[in-house]
């Protein structure tokens, strides 16, 4: 089905974080005073940029080695992150670009503005990207990022997390989020996570240990499924209504 001809269902804001959440200090000067203005969708929203394998390098989906010297690899718990990209009806989203970025095993980013005490890992860059296959599956290898402190006015630590950027089939599905790890006690006390008021929506950001996908003597697997906005069923009803 060509989704680009359909509208997307309305965004469910109850599952989304609040724009103004003062416990996450940076939102104080960056949230909006006005309500969003609702617009009907057009092709500007239902179409979006398309990416292909020619956009990617051979090791883009392998953060363990994509910055490492020849024969070397990044330091940390070796993990495999895998899952499905689906829409809200459960239909797979194929050929979608997923970009990821993260801190190294000690909780330090390879970024000039990050001055945390933990050292850089000379063999870890911290980003990767891949395309979903026809069934919406994606997979990449990396190391588990460390938790790290951040300036938020107190003793604030981020749970270990991997940033995800996802392009769906329409620009209205564009999403940036973060993946957390099952069992991390920081999740419940992180203001960035808790800006989402809905416990089920928070739980949906937590990857599950996946023993079936783990590679013995090599990689611990985590399963993280991602859901994008689905097609608007009322458009379909209008088409068949014959009025």
């Amino acid at each position: 089905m060509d989704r680009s001809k359909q509208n997307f269902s309305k965004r469910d804001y109850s599952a989304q974080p609040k724009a103004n959440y003062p416990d996450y200090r940076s939102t104080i000067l960056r949230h909006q005073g006005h309500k969003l203005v609702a617009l009907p969708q057009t092709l500007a929203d239902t179409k979006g940029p398309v990416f292909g394998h020619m956009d990617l390098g051979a090791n883009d989906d392998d953060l363990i080695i994509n910055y490492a010297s020849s024969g070397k690899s990044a330091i940390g718990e070796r993990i495999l992150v895998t899952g499905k990209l689906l829409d809200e009806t459960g239909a797979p989203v194929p050929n979608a670009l997923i970009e990821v970025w993260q801190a190294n095993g000690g909780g330090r980013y390879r970024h000039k503005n990050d001055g945390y005490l933990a050292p850089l890992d000379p063999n870890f860059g911290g980003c990767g990207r891949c395309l979903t296959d026809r069934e919406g599956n994606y997979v990449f290898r990396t190391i588990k990022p460390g938790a790290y402190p951040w300036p938020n006015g107190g003793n604030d630590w981020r749970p270990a997390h991997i940033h995800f950027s996802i392009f769906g089939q329409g620009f209205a599905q564009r999403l940036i989020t973060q993946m957390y790890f099952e069992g991390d006690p920081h999740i419940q006390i992180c203001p960035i996570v808790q800006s989402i008021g809905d416990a089920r929506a928070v739980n949906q950001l937590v990857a599950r240990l996946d023993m079936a996908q783990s590679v013995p003597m090599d990689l611990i697997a985590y399963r993280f499924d991602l859901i994008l906005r689905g097609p608007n069923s009322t458009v379909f009803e209008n088409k068949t209504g014959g009025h």
Partner: protein
Amino acid sequence: MDSLDRRRTQPAQTNAEAPLRETASQTAGPYVHIGCLPNAADVRGIYSNDLTVNRILPNAPITISGKVFEGDNIICKDVMLEFWHADETGCYDNGIWHRSITNSTSGLFSINTQMPGKTKTGEGKWLAPFVSVWITARGINLGLLTRIYFPDHESVLHEDPHMNLIPESRRLTLMAKLVNGGYYFDIHLQGPNETVFFDV
């Protein structure tokens, strides 16, 4: 109770329980550049090319630049912006996409592109040319969507059905200015000149 052996090999349950809802957004954070435009932010050696390099247009006669301001008129220097618009004929099949960051010193973002053509609503009404802009950064929990319109099309804008859904007093926040032959567009996240952001 499952045997220990079974528990040690079983597949994970999905993190996304039915009924499925869109995954919650989280901030792109202050280091979005690493993931999205590492070379442009001097994070070199990870990707040979940033994603945008394959998207450079052979013919890009217009520039759009500007700054992003948070409250108290402070310039934001850690923002990522994406631009998406119809081609010159108004077609989205080969729609044009760009990504830019606000410069870490000046705060300026800039793209070279084509003037988009007029497009139509689902009901066949004409829409004035515009560029969709999606903004993410530290402190922005859910990406913000706005549009850039151009002073060249002022006459069309009066009849634009989307423009008529925006309170009149705020419409000018969506209008680029022509400065030294280029288009200039500032974005205000809050305050008296807050830019109009959309829910589509």
